[in-house]
């Protein structure tokens, strides 16, 4: 069984919603579209109060190359363009739409018919990338990096293979899993589109071994695509980390930043992104909805919902049996890398892969105790770093040392804090150090 070569942990999987079919969530009364749904420059709102929008109407245009446009997922009237609390727990610019009916833009093909790559011989690489860019597609695994940027390798780099991240190594989450079970054909067309867009002959779909039904189904379907291979992977966190996945699938390690995956010839896309690309290119449908897992041990019906972007989380929880009384923490995303939310009024965005409810007891961290230097964090770190050391020098503001110890390589997977027997907040401090050191490096580069 393939896996990455350094570190890793195995959190309890808790895939409560595995096997539950995708349900479509009801339309919200008011949808809020944050202009910050991706990494990079925020989108610029192009609508104003009182404008009537349909499903698929452009609300915000891309604010630069590393940016993505934002489309309305509902029809109705723009009630205001103002700041709103978003999934980053800060108030940022957003467009509020009061929902009326469900009218779609005419250009969107709403039929379920499968369009194969062979049916559209007119598509060349450039058109595909352009369509993806126009549709506002970002990395759907949670990182929300604008997709078209990854598909345009910088000069001097050559892609050799496409790796589809269907690992879903986060505990609890099953969004990608359910998507694979229900939309396998569409996903494979999407993968073929990505391969065509970057001009490579090899495609891999990495799936963690705890989803045997998805592996079997994909292996069956993939027979029609001789250039695509399904790679079952060992259940180990963070198997779905971009760099870990490349290491596991093609046994190459991406060097420390500023190197990026393309430096070793790999383009990694999430399986949800592949599906979104299929819809964008073949169905002309911009990114307006996604699968989100609403789960938690205390949630009545943990489920996978197909929800429109901009739907408030409170509504999604209502659809899964309501917010449990003993809720202690609400997490946007999975438990290892997700973000604790301060309110349920926050709307879902392109990167919302899950909504996890924890009860008070699960939510509270244990009291930190002194470091006993057991080195378990060193053994768990998938990047070969020394988390105990990084956390210590970060909390002592020793930025030069932190840079020497490769703090910027940290992928913030949380394995160190997860494994620490002393319950030390290792990642809190490392994250602080990492962001500070990255700021120092940026300043230095800017000076040059």
């Amino acid at each position: 069984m393939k896996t990455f070569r350094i570190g890793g942990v195995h959190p309890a999987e808790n895939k409560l919603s595995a096997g539950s079919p995708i349900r479509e969530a009801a339309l919200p009364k008011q949808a809020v579209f944050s202009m910050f749904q991706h990494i990079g420059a925020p989108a610029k709102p192009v609508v104003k109060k009182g404008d009537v929008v349909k499903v698929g109407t452009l609300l915000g245009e891309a604010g630069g190359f590393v940016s993505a446009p934002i489309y309305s997922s509902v029809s109705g009237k723009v009630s205001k363009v103002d700041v709103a609390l978003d999934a980053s727990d800060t108030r940022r610019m957003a467009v509020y739409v009061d929902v009326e009916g469900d009218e779609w833009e005419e250009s969107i093909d709403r039929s379920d018919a499968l369009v194969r790559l062979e049916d559209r011989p007119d598509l060349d690489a450039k058109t595909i990338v352009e369509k993806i860019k126009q549709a506002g597609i970002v990395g759907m695994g949670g990182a929300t990096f604008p997709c078209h940027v990854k598909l345009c390798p910088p000069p001097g780099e050559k892609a050799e293979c496409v790796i589809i991240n269907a690992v879903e190594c986060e505990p609890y989450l099953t969004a990608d899993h359910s998507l694979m079970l229900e939309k396998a054909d569409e996903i494979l067309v999407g993968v073929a589109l990505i391969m065509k867009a970057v001009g490579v002959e090899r495609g891999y779909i990495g799936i963690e071994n705890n989803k045997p039904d998805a592996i079997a189904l994909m292996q069956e379907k993939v027979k029609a695509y001789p250039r695509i291979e399904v790679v079952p992977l060992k259940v180990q966190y963070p198997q779905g980390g971009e760099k870990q996945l490349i290491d596991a699938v093609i046994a190459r390690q991406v060097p420390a930043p500023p190197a990026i995956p393309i430096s070793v010839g790999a383009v990694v896309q999430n399986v949800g992104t592949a599906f979104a690309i299929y819809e964008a290119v073949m169905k002309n449908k911009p990114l307006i909805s996604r699968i989100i897992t609403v789960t938690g041990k205390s949630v009545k019906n943990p489920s996978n919902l197909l929800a429109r972007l901009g739907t408030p989380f409170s509504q999604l929880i209502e659809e899964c049996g309501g917010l449990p009384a003993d809720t202690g923490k609400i997490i946007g995303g999975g438990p290892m890398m997700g973000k604790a939310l301060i309110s349920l009024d926050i709307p879902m965005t392109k990167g919302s892969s899950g909504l996890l409810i924890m009860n008070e007891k699960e939510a509270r961290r244990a009291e930190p105790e002194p470091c006993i230097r057991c080195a378990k964090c060193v053994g768990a770190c998938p990047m070969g770093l020394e988390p105990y050391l990084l956390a210590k020098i970060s909390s002592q503001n020793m930025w030069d040392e932190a840079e020497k110890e490769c703090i910027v390589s940290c992928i913030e997977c949380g394995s160190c804090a997860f494994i620490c027997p002393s319950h030390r907040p290792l990642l809190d401090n490392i994250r602080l150090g990492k962001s500070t050191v990255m700021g120092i490096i940026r300043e230095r580069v800017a000076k040059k």
Partner: protein
Amino acid sequence: MSNRLIVSLSPHVHSGDSIQKNMYGVCIALVPALVASLYFFGLGAAVVMLTSVASCVIFEWVIAKFILRRPRTTIMDGSAILTGVLLGFNLPSNLPLWIIIIGALVAIGIGKMTFGGLGQNPFNPALVGRVFLLISFPAQMTTWPVSGSVEYLDAQTGATPLYLMKWAIQSGDVSVLKDMPSSLEMIIGQHGGSLGEVSAILLLIGCLFMIVRKIITWHIPVSILGTVAIISGVLHLVNPIYSDPISVLCSGGLMLGACFMATDYVTSPMVPKGQIIYGVAIGALTVIIRNWGSYPEGMSFAILIMNAFTPLINTYCKPRRFGEVIRKEAKK
């Protein structure tokens, strides 16, 4: 919602591991050897062990509460109990109580709490206690009861295998080694020595338990035992006055040291590469001290010496960073 929501940075789940689990895990791993020592040394072993554990815990509590004035004492985390057990394992079973209590005071007071308690001590506290006693009370610390002598203070004492080995080297007379127990007896533990040191096989089982439970990694025990086996094997082949590797491995505190003392979290290096350097150096130092030093046993000294080198090893031994291999290949 009954209460305020909690926000924190990721990760939001924890493995459930804790200091207690690790410390008590080591204690459990020591149980088989403890049972063996009770069988071989009877009442003496029980008295020594109980005194050692109780006094370590009491000293830790007193120091944390009244001298350091900590709001919370840490006696329940198991580290003081473990220190007590390990200290007891390193003592002869006929040691008077007051010496044990002094040893515990030195181990906890000087070896551990002086530096700030758990996680801060540069040297293994149990070994600090033992070496202090060894130097201060050499007579009492080196008269070991023979196996099967189950009385406490007036146990029958005799020469240990280590003493015979040393004597053979010093006199250059191979015939001394004829009095050595057989290899099987050495492995099971039917020979004289400190109360926890004698049963090599049970200590090894405890060590395997810890490796399986992921309390420790294999690097330190394997590198120590491997180094000792190789060096003493070569010496034995060159000159038979040096004992055979099995006797060397099973005698004295070597097995206990390699599996339980050198692997102490706080005082051993953090990175596998460093752990192997540390283990090899301990193994080599042990053989050197045993064969050519003035003490018959060198394990404690070797571990303490390498404890002092641990910060240095940590500074210079870095784990293999992700992507490092590729970079090196690219440079070529």
